[in-house]
């Protein structure tokens, strides 16, 4: 991937800022999401809560199903491939997906290596629990980062933990002397230049969204106040009682995340939230996949 391509891909993520990216499994859901104000949709066969319930191996979605969603909406369409599965990524690039999510939600195809994303023209978003993971993914060519959180749970605790961890590490590097950055790069297992960027700019070199466990307007506002630049909502919408209303409310909550009065209005009468499972109750921690 040329520097210019990487910039264009990073810049598409900039256009998504302040927005909500919603998981959808059918063209119908995609249209609902677009109408409700999603800035992009993630096309997948099963939402994370169902993947969790079904167990077994979960893979890239059927390209036909993804194409159906591409035709249904005018906003960017993302799709997931397995960690390390560069052939799935090639297929997604061939159908001109707007963004590939190399995602821990699917079963990893490689337990050591992530995809060399610099070989692709199409942009990648990757999950991260901390700054080291984020910078390693960026070094591999990712042009957008999201917290891993814990997908399919409706429990926001891990997304909060990951966002706070990244903020803490960014603050630490920002306050370091320049001669300490070399060793920090070694600790994080990333090139010096990326650490230097974080030191100089007090932020990641790419856009950082929150993901994994966001289920309510309040969850979205929490993540935005913690410094997320936008939000992915997976199971939280179409596993709830009133998807349209909840989707619209989360979109507005992300725009006005500091306005508690408005958030109170938005949180009224949303119907049932997804039931959710808390992190102590689950056996499979997707966030531990791919580091």
């Amino acid at each position, binding site marked *: 991937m040329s520097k210019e391509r990487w910039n*264009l891909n990073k810049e*598409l993520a900039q*256009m998504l800022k302040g927005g909500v990216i919603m998981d959808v499994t059918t063209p119908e859901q995609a249209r609902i999401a677009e109408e409700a*104000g999603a800035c992009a949709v993630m096309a997948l066969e099963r939402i994370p809560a169902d993947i969790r319930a079904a167990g077994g191996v979960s893979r890239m979605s059927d390209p036909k199903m993804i194409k159906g969603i591409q035709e249904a909406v005018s906003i960017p369409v993302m799709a997931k491939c397995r960690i390390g599965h560069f052939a799935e990524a090639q297929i997604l690039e061939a159908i001109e997906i707007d963004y590939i999510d190399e995602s821990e939600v699917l079963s990893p195809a490689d337990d050591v290596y992530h995809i060399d994303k610099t070989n692709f023209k199409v942009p990648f978003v990757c999950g991260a629990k901390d700054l080291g993971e984020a910078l390693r993914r960026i070094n591999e060519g990712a042009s957008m980062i999201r917290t891993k959180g814990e997908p399919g749970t409706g429990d926001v605790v891990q997304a909060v933990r990951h966002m706070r961890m990244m903020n803490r590490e960014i603050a630490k590097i920002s306050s370091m002397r320049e001669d300490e950055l070399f060793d920090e790069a070694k600790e994080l297992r990333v090139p010096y230049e990326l650490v230097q960027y974080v030191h100089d700019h007090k932020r990641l070199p790419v856009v950082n969204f929150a993901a994994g466990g966001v289920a309510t307007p309040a969850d979205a506002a929490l993540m935005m106040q913690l410094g997320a630049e936008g939000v992915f909502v997976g199971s939280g919408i179409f596993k709830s009682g009133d998807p349209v209303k909840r989707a619209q409310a989360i979109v507005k909550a992300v725009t*006005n995340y500091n306005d508690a009065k408005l958030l109170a209005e938005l949180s009224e009468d949303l119907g049932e939230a997804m039931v959710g499972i808390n992190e102590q109750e689950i056996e499979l921690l997707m966030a531990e996949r791919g580091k």
Partner: protein
Amino acid sequence: MNRRSSFLWLKGVNRLKVGILAVQGAFIEHEHKMQALGATCVEIRKKEDLNQHFDGLILPGGESTVQGKLLNDLDMFADLKKRIQQGIPTLATCAGLILLAEHISNDDKAYFQTLPVTVKRNAYGRQLGSFYTEEEVKGIGQVPMTFIRAPYVESAEDEVEVLAKVEEKIVAVRYGTQIGLSFHPELDENNKIHEMFYQMMEAA
């Protein structure tokens, strides 16, 4: 920053104030540009943010469907449309251009409809069609242009001034106090477009 505006900045008075639509998209990038030129920026996120005077308005890039919906849902549409019609200097980039356009050729929706042009959404295709180039803009010279899933202007009424074309397609127009661009001047180092807009605000 010229000497006059830096002096005003020190005094903290009489700085030009630009309202930047901040419901979704890349609005921070515009803020940084305008602040560097000496303007004060106000983020417009909700109706109460409109209870003040602005010298200029920026409609940033992002998703036009989201921005258009939030403008209505948050009850800001009519107020902003009125200001644009009354001639507030307006800089609209990418999604912003779509919001201003009178017609969208490949979409039933239309928003402010204050700019008599027909635009085509996602005219260069999906993200793989996004590109960077440099081209002449009338009056200010060569400008870097970043196109992200960009629209272009298919046709414009006679009274609309075409400022730039890329491969025969219109990518920059001016109509009265409205500037509409397919590309993203806020993403590149060059400040020429924002300087042109700043001067329009000063003259207004």
